[in-house]
């Protein structure tokens, strides 16, 4: 086997391995879901209507930010990328519909979170709308995710 052929073959092999890994990733929801759950509850503790002590809220806030900007892209983000194809090809309308809704909710929540982190909830109208969008999308995301894939959820505690 010539050297270019060998090179091509190894590239194909890597691609195949990657495709295989990526396909398998679409079914590995645990890290992604735990991340989303962590964000959901740490975010919930930051909701002004809940009388949470600042000593708890301050840690909740830093966890929410770190998980949101560092861990979420590496877990939920990658899972979402691989999982999207699966969802689009799904024969089940409910999965397709809730999945598509989650696309928007997750995207909206992530982007509004980034805006709040880097530009701030400064109090003007755009910032207030962003804050509201982040809260609402966060609140909706939890139930939607459970509707979408309760069967596979880490919260089912299957033995």
């Amino acid at each position: 086997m010539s050297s270019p052929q060998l090179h091509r073959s190894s590239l194909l092999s890597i691609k195949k391995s990657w495709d295989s890994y990526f396909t398998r990733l679409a079914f590995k929801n645990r890290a992604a879901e735990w991340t989303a759950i962590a964000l959901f509850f740490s975010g919930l503790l930051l909701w002004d209507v809940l009388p949470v002590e600042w000593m708890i809220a301050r840690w909740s806030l830093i966890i929410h930010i770190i998980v949101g900007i560092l861990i979420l892209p590496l877990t939920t983000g990658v899972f979402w990328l691989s999982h999207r194809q699966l969802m689009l090809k799904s024969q089940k309308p409910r999965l397709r519909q809730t999945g598509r809704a989650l696309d928007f909710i997750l995207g909206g929540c992530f982007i509004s979170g980034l805006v709040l982190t880097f530009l701030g909830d400064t109090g003007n109208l755009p910032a207030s709308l962003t804050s509201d969008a982040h809260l609402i999308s966060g609140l909706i995301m939890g139930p939607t995710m459970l509707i979408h894939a309760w069967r596979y959820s880490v919260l089912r505690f299957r033995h």
Partner: protein
Amino acid sequence: MNLLRPFLCVLCVLFSVNGQTQTIDSPAVSSSSLQWSQDRHTIYSANLWHGSISQRAAAPEHSQLPPQQLSLGKDIRRIAINHQQQELMATDYLNNETIWVDLKSWSIKQRIPTGQRPFGVVYQASHDRYWVSIFEDHQLLAIQDGEIIHSISTLDTPRGLALLDDRLFVTHSMTGQLSIYDVSSLPEKPTTVISLAEIQHTDETVSQGLPRLLDDIAISPNGKEAWLPHVLWNFDHKFQFQSTVFPAVSVIELTPGHEKERIDHRKELFKTINIVSKNRTRIVSNPADAEFSASGKKVYISLSGSDDIIVFDRSRSGKSNKKRHRRKKHSGGAKASQIYRHTPEQNPRGLLIHGNTLWVQQAISHTLTTFDRGGDNAFDRLRLHDTTQHLLTPTNALSVPHIDSIDRGRALFHSANTDLNPAHPIAGDFWMSCNSCHLDGFNFTNQYLLEAYGQDKKKDARVGHTDLDNMISGDFITDYLNIIQKTQGGMGEDDRDGAVLISPQQAPDEIMDDMMDLHHFVTLPHNLPFVATWLRTDEKTPIHPKEFTNSAQCAECHQPIFDQWADSNHRLMGESNPYFMTLLEIAGKEEGESFKDWCLGCHMPNNVLSNTPISNNGHMFEKNGATLKTALANKQPDLDEGTGCLFCHRIMSLEDAGGNAAFTVNLSDRDHYVGEKETDSTLLQWFASRQINSKPGAHKASYIKPFYDDPTLCKSCHNEFAPGTGAMIVDTFGEWESSSYNNPSDPAQHKTCIDCHMHGDIAQIGNNIPGLSTQRGTAKQNVATHQFTGANHHLVGLRNKQQEAMSIQLLRSAATLEQHVGVQRDDSSALIVSVKNVGAGHSLPTGVADFRQFWLEVIMRDVDGNIVFSSGVADDEGNLPTDTRLFMKVMGDTMGQPVGLRFWRYSQLLSDTRIPANGSREERFSIPHSAQPITINTRLLYRIYPQWITRQVQVNQPDLPTPPIVELSSITSVLSLPATLK
């Protein structure tokens, strides 16, 4: 003998030896530091500054009850117990909370935050709720099941409380009033306010003055009378021994709907009690608490200054035999029958009576002493029982609770007992203690001392202590001794009882030790930790410089506000203000280094709090906060000067003592974000900023207090009184308070400090200026800008021309000028110039009104242009003629000479030609005979400092530009005088 028997029986009934035989259960409850259990087996005590409560058996036969003590907080003043005997409510005066205690488990059920200085507490059984008086915040709170269910705004300084048939009685300690509320249902119905009589005599040594320091209320068993112990302040003349403070007890008639003071029943305790000792009428001081015997025939009053108990016999109360009393004051039939001199321990306060036993709480030693009352017969005498029990549980190491230097200092502060140290007494002839004026130490009640001043300022502007060597600074011991001698007659000043007059400058060692103890008490964190200034912090001092967040960091989100402040006089008012530095140096040299804190408390408070020496590295010309930005970039702490973002926005409470930086700052105890304090770590700081950005609520709440728009906050530094003497040097707040601008009922008229001095457009004062205080923040209807535009245009102009222009614009908007010709008494003609204060809500000038130059320049020219008259024209060197018509305040020293730069030595007002708010002044100038018409050019001019001061300052700071003379207004008239005028 048989014939005498009926007569003897009648006598026995009349003079019943056992007070219990006529017991009437009192329906009234009063706030007190001592309370009973329902069965009278247990006594509960509020252990005041020890911060605890105790439970003690009332008698040996109840000794199965173990003595208990529970630490609750800092300063537990009063307690109340519910009728089921299951719970107790205590007020913690210094922690600003009430504490709900479960008596069965002897543990804290709940802490209930309140306003400033909760004091009195009573339990209203009919509604199962407690009433609490909030002394400094002027409130009453109703607390039920651990919740504040109702709040009432009251007159000033509610303190003592009592309840009788759902009528709530409230003493107003510093205004001499008694409020009565009907609290049978909520909301309450205010019934009446009784202002205790303020009596004056021409003879200053007769008991008279303003009723003050009202505290607890004693209600007679039949509910017809209330007795209010208090003192009288008579500050309408110089402080003189036994002529300015008098003890008294006022008597209130409590007939529902007809409550009133029985002025003729008032018990004047000063030199009016016919109990003579050493050929002199006995003097007593500081009546604290009163308690009726069960029959109501005897009243016992603790005298916390002279350490006595005075006993009043009321057996003839209510009998107004006109014949018998026609030549004497009736006094309600109550006569002092005994002065028990002295209680075994110091500072008797709370009292309790059961049967023939009287318990007295002695505050300094935290002990409970038992007395045998004898009975209610007029001839029964109070005798000391042989039991005194400690209210505090001794520690393992000590058989009795430890008394430290602070306690000894506290004892001196509260004592007027001449017998405690006959050779070197703290007060002469048991007259008064420091606490007779400085209630509970040094706090907001100081403002009432200043208000009680009633002398002619031209004779004596000093409210308090005179003859101070160095304003209680540097060698403070000398001045403490000066005060004790000159104010209280102590330390041998009154030597009638064998006291030895000591020299304040050469006090014996034992006296020096006593004064050190006193100093330790005076410098407690809630008193005057820095002595000369009233600035306080409730943090541990010194505060590390790293705790002071660099204001440049705030610019990350609040850039416009930072930019306004960075060049303002609220920032560069310390090392960068050469005038200030010159005066500071003089103050330190004249009075001692520690006196500088009086100035630094407002000008460089961060240095005071962090105990950082000041330097000479000012930056008078610095623009845009350059040094702050550099320090931030280099991660170096920078205390900077003046009042920065963190300092002002971390003022946590105001103590309106009348000025002198009377507020408490706390930098640290705020809601920090994770990493916010790690100023050395760029990464953690970045994360902290992201957190603040994304959830700024906690950040905002940490830096905003409701009183930030209250002019009292500005008063804290823009009112200034001399330490010790209390002479009011600057009273900008008082000038505003009495002006038409202080009109809260008419929002269109009402203007406070921030409406003019924190306004972004001087021409638009009165209108809102919309804008942002945070980048991309909430659009506010009106933004309080942070230039702090004021009269000092010169220094601000060295770095910011826009702010200088705003200052001058503000000055020009303050006054108008008019002139006309009038006729004088000798028929000669005169130019009458009228200057009206049309824009300033205070006098013109205010602040350092002894330095500001605000004057009229008048030049008259004849028809040929020759000057025929001039006034107020500065010479080539900038000096003004001596006859210049200046609008200013001239303060004099004790010798009647102008104080000049040593303004803290102000003792008498020499002149005050300032123009009050809404007022005007007319100045007359003779018009000479000249070729007419005469052209008169009149100008209203202003200069920030006189030339002679600038010259002195320029010796130290040669690059200080000379302040210009600014024309505020001018008017030119051409006059032809009528021939009839001379």
